[in-house]
């Protein structure tokens, strides 16, 4: 059995340390599963080695050349912005593709990329949600959103810039009443939220972090306006925010949206796959959106590698072969056990631009619920 290496970039001590255990556990689980059930038959195995980068560009930059010479990996499993920033310029020379766990960023929206995201960008996903929400409301009036964001990280700014662009291009669907800026750990958002509501916001978008969701929710509670929903993303979604609020019932009626499976308790194929990773492959993880992020990037890499082996044989598979497979071969939703929708990469963007769909989750009567599946992502131009 020929073993190929995958480099794992992780953030155990930086800003995303809270989700790292599930994410890295799941992506390792996927590779273990693949090696055992798919690769063994072909005579190949995939092995991941995790490095802590603290989500620091400097650390990634000085670490990577060493990883490359030590592991000679066929692919990189990254987390997000810092990994893309540090490596996107040099990967074309190193000829190693990188697959990120997060949704895409505006800054990385470049053609002919060696960095890939499992999902479209955050604004894409949000736009899909608003389009759906408007349809559901049955009215022609645009959805009025109050955005709560932060300048702590440029990625957050990137997100609200994108959604503002969407609103500008689609005034019939969406209107941003105001973007409120907070600290990483907001003190009290009552005044700000009150202002957004009085400006007519009928939904609040909080895509930055869990602490902001908690503060926003508390503000709504103290204003007695819990009927106004919050929409979140995968990294600060309902379950983790609910935990931070002391219970999932606190998140009643809010939404989360992203283009992957949602961590419901229903017996989905994704869930079954997860259970297998946990029991058979001893992944010490729980079923959260972070875990699903890890599974999705693991699956993308594993399936692309599988394809590359098919083409190249088990010897001498290189990073560029994996990338070629990524670009040439679509991955159907079945092949990812429903963890991801159908995925087809092109050279236009680092994320699948066509046929993308998102799922929408909510909390109903204290229980997590998948509300809508395969909501199509509308067109969104670069911002």
């Amino acid at each position: 059995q020929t073993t190929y290496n995958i480099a794992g970039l992780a953030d155990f001590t930086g800003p995303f340390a809270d989700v790292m255990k599930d994410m890295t556990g799941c992506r390792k689980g996927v590779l273990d599963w693949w090696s055992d059930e798919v690769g063994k038959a072909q005579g190949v195995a995939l092995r991941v080695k995790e490095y802590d980068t603290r989500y620091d560009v400097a650390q990634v930059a000085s670490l990577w050349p060493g990883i490359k010479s030590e592991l000679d990996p066929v692919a990189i499993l990254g987390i997000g912005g810092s990994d893309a920033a540090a490596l996107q310029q040099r990967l074309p020379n190193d000829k190693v593709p990188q697959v990120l766990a997060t949704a895409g960023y505006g800054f990385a929206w470049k053609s002919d990329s060696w960095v890939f995201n499992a999902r479209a960008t955050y604004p894409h996903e949000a736009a899909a949600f608003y389009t759906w929400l408007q349809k559901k409301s049955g009215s022609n009036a645009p959805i009025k959103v109050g955005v709560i964001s932060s300048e702590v990280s440029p990625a957050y700014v990137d997100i609200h810039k994108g959604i503002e662009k969407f609103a500008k291009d689609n005034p019939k669907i969406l209107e941003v009443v105001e973007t409120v800026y907070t600290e990483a750990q907001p003190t009290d958002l009552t005044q700000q939220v009150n202002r957004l509501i009085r400006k007519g916001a009928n939904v609040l978008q909080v895509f930055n972090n869990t602490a902001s969701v908690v503060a926003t929710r508390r503000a709504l509670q103290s204003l007695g306006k819990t009927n106004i929903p919050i929409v979140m993303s995968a990294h600060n979604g309902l379950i983790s925010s609910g935990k931070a609020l002391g219970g999932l019932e606190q998140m009643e009626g809010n939404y989360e949206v992203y283009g992957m499976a949602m961590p419901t308790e229903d017996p989905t194929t994704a869930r079954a796959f997860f259970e297998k990773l946990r029991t058979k492959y001893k992944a010490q993880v729980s079923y959260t959106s972070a875990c699903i992020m890890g599974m999705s990037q693991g699956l993308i890499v594993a399936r692309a590698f599988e394809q590359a082996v098919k083409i190249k044989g088990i010897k001498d598979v290189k990073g560029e072969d994996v990338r070629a497979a990524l670009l040439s071969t679509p991955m159907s939703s079945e092949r990812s056990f429903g963890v991801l929708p159908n995925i087809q990469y092109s050279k236009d963007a680092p994320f699948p631009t066509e046929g993308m769909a998102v799922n929408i989750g909510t909390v109903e009567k204290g229980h997590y619920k998948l509300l809508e599946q395969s909501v199509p992502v509308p067109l969104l131009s670069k911002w």
Partner: protein
Amino acid sequence: MDPAGVFATSFAQDQALVRTRSQAVTLGLFVLFMFALPWIADARSVAVMTSMLITAVVVTGLQINTGLAGQINLGQAAFMGAGAYATALLATKGSMPLWIALPIGGVCAAAFGLVFGLAAVRIKGFYLALTTIAAQILFHFMVLNLPAAWMGGSNGITVEPARLFGWVLDTDAGVYYLCLVVACIMIAGAYGVARSRHGRIFAAVRDDDVASGMMGINVVRTKALAFLLGAFYAGIGGGLWAYYVRFVSIDQFTLIHSIWFIAMVIVGGMGSVTGALIGVFVIRFAQEFFTSVGPSLVENFSFLSGDLVFAALNIFLGGIIAGFLIFEPRGLMHRWNILKRSYRMWPYPY
């Protein structure tokens, strides 16, 4: 103190940095080793050394400003960022060659530093140190909120590889040599400044700014100059950084980076260029050591999970810095000097 038997016979000799033949040989071998590194060492060492060289330029600037001129500066990463952004803009939007973009990047950072240098005229001590944090905050705010066309906003700036006389420096070794040559020039310059007129008045202003004024030193100008020079170094380092990572964004230049820079100056020893270099080496080495030990630990001991191991390594890193400060609060350079002195005095203890 010189080793016994070495006497300066001219004033120029008295000033020289390299005083003995063995020192000269050591220095020569060291430089040779640095140039041979990409051939004799693995990719990881070259990468680490490249980042050390860039850090060394930035920290040498900080040493001039903080160690020599006595102004604690917690904004060095912001100055570095200013240089990185300026170089990146010149290189991409202005299509300027390396040898123009890099120095101008330094000058832009110096101009940014000058603003705080002028504040340093009135504000002193901790107040100044904490004020320079504002540089960090303001820089962050400016980049994000100026029109994206100016400084890239939240998108950052992608940089093409450095080009010099037809070479494209897009390999690890190419970037390494670029950093090595620039670092050599900058560090040699720092030694030059430190031992001539300007370095002396920096130190004079640090030791006693009242007396300095009465020696005919323009204290205002000197302090501003120290900030300017320190920021210039940061800017050059930032420019190298831009060519090294080829993508600059605001989260590469944060307060925590500035804090690490200061930590390097402290561990190495305040006031000496050599100390700054030692500090950079020791701290970056410790950082890299821990980041490379972690993965192997996780891999080989399956009962250790990543989150625990890496967090625990952070404790070690913090402990190492605190430990250095406790046992050698005046820096490694100080310890070295004492060692040297007692070695030369041996066998007489004092």
